[in-house]
């Protein structure tokens, strides 16, 4: 090699070996999946044995009308579907409000305004240091009659303020995570504060904010079950009512949990696809 002189091989001529199936990796994945399946099988068996021991009367054949009924060729949605739609409506309104509250609170905490910082801090501390259930009662029994709002909106606002406090910290973290040089670059070309955040800071904070914010929306969907205590007619309430009518507690709770799971998993897959397309379009 010493004293070697050569010209670079043109990039187009550099061939790459065909990378076929990596058998080791396939075997590994297969093994992992079988382990998981084995664990699931054991848990399922234990539940089944337990139910048999209790002489629980499984009635899975009765669940179809929980979802829909067909009468004279027309479809009538059952309680679980109606409940799911209410849950989605509740969670999406509360989610949008939570993100708005999060942005406002985050900017208030980052602002130079002393009043803004104090109010934001009080709000965060109050929400974080009291139980969600107590907040819900406050909204429903105290604020709702004072401001004349119904139980649905009491539930929405309670969830929005609760999750908003977490959204605020996520958003603040994203904004603080944008490099100092970017602020200075924006200042140096004379952008005003609004433009600086709109064109430079927020677009760069978004990739940092989006993953934890998805987690937040998923917890919001799960936390929304709590509004069943003030009898908002969402999915969990629908489940409670069905059990009162049919006594099929095991089937109904499995179904309700399964529906929550389906919604949250769909959401996280959707968001990760969206993130991937975001990253692709950028570089």
């Amino acid at each position, binding site marked *: 090699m010493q004293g070697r002189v050569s010209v670079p091989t043109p990039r187009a001529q550099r061939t790459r070996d065909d990378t076929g199936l990596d058998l080791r990796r396939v075997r590994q994945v297969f093994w992992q999946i079988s382990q998981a399946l084995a664990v699931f099988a054991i848990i399922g068996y234990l539940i089944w044995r337990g139910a048999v021991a209790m002489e629980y009367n499984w009635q899975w054949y009765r669940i179809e009308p929980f979802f829909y009924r067909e009468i004279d060729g027309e479809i009538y949605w059952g309680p679980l579907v109606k409940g799911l739609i209410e849950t989605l409506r509740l969670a999406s309104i509360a989610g949008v409000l939570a993100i708005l509250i999060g942005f406002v609170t985050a900017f208030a905490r980052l602002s130079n305004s002393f009043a803004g910082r104090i109010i934001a801090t009080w709000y965060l501390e109050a929400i974080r240091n009291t139980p969600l259930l107590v907040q819900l009662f406050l909204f429903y029994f105290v604020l709702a009659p004072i401001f004349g709002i119904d139980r649905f909106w009491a539930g929405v606002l309670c969830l929005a303020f609760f999750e908003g406090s977490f959204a605020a910290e996520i958003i603040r973290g994203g904004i603080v995570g944008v490099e100092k*040089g*970017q602020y*200075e*670059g*924006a*200042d*140096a*070309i*004379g*952008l*005003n504060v609004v*433009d600086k955040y709109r*064109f*430079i800071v927020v*677009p*760069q904070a978004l990739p940092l904010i989006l993953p934890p914010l998805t987690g937040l929306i998923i917890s919001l969907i799960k936390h929304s079950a709590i509004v069943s205590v003030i009898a908002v007619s969402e999915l969990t309430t629908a489940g409670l009512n069905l059990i009162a009518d049919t006594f099929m507690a095991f089937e109904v709770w499995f179904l309700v949990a399964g529906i929550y799971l389906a919604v949250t998993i769909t959401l996280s897959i959707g968001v990760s696809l969206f993130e991937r397309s975001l990253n692709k379009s*950028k*570089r």
Partner: protein
Amino acid sequence: MLDAHAKPLVEITGMCKWYGDFSALFDINLTVHEGEKVVVCGPSGSGKSTMIRCINQLEAHQKGTIRVDGVEVSPELKNIEGIRREVGMVFQSFNLFPHMTILDNLTLGPTRNRGISKKEARDLAMHYLERVHIAEQAEKYPVQLSGGQQQRVAIARALCMKPKVMLFDEPTSALDPEMIAGVLDVMIELAEEGMTMIVVTHEMGFARKVADRVVFMDQGEIIEVAEPEQFFSNPQSDRAQLFLSQLLGH
């Protein structure tokens, strides 16, 4: 070289700055006239960056006055953006906006602050990109460019605002050696066109060629101001002698 009637563009008088108890700048007095080129040098931590960053108030000073084109700048000034639009700044680390194309990096300032149309801004941007010799990179993103190219984009971005004075904070010290000449060439061309410039740099070739005056700083004070030939061949202060011997020593 300087015409006697040139008006003062940047006037710093009795300026002091503290970081807590630490005195970063003390009693800075410096006037830069229209068309003048001033090179600032001095050891690390001597306050060079802090001084030029006070001019467009990226840092706030606590005492003394700074005037840019006759307008006093201070932390209380409401319309600080207005001043910053007249003062271009180029950073050691470029600070381009990574989520925007080169073209968008250049047109953002003019369209938002100068109220000109997208089309005009585009033409303006292309004009300056040609001047810094990278017009063909307009549609790329900053990460796709070399350091030297990024720094030239940063210069073009500042020029798009048609500033009255340009500040450079060690524009070549983050660059690989082979990239430095390209950036310095652009700065020399700019100087020849009569731009008012304040440049923090240790590139002595550049200082010799371009500077009307060299300002030497140490420990937050201006120690010596001289013409480049005189400064480099016969520095008056001990500190400047020490600094130059260290700069040349290895």
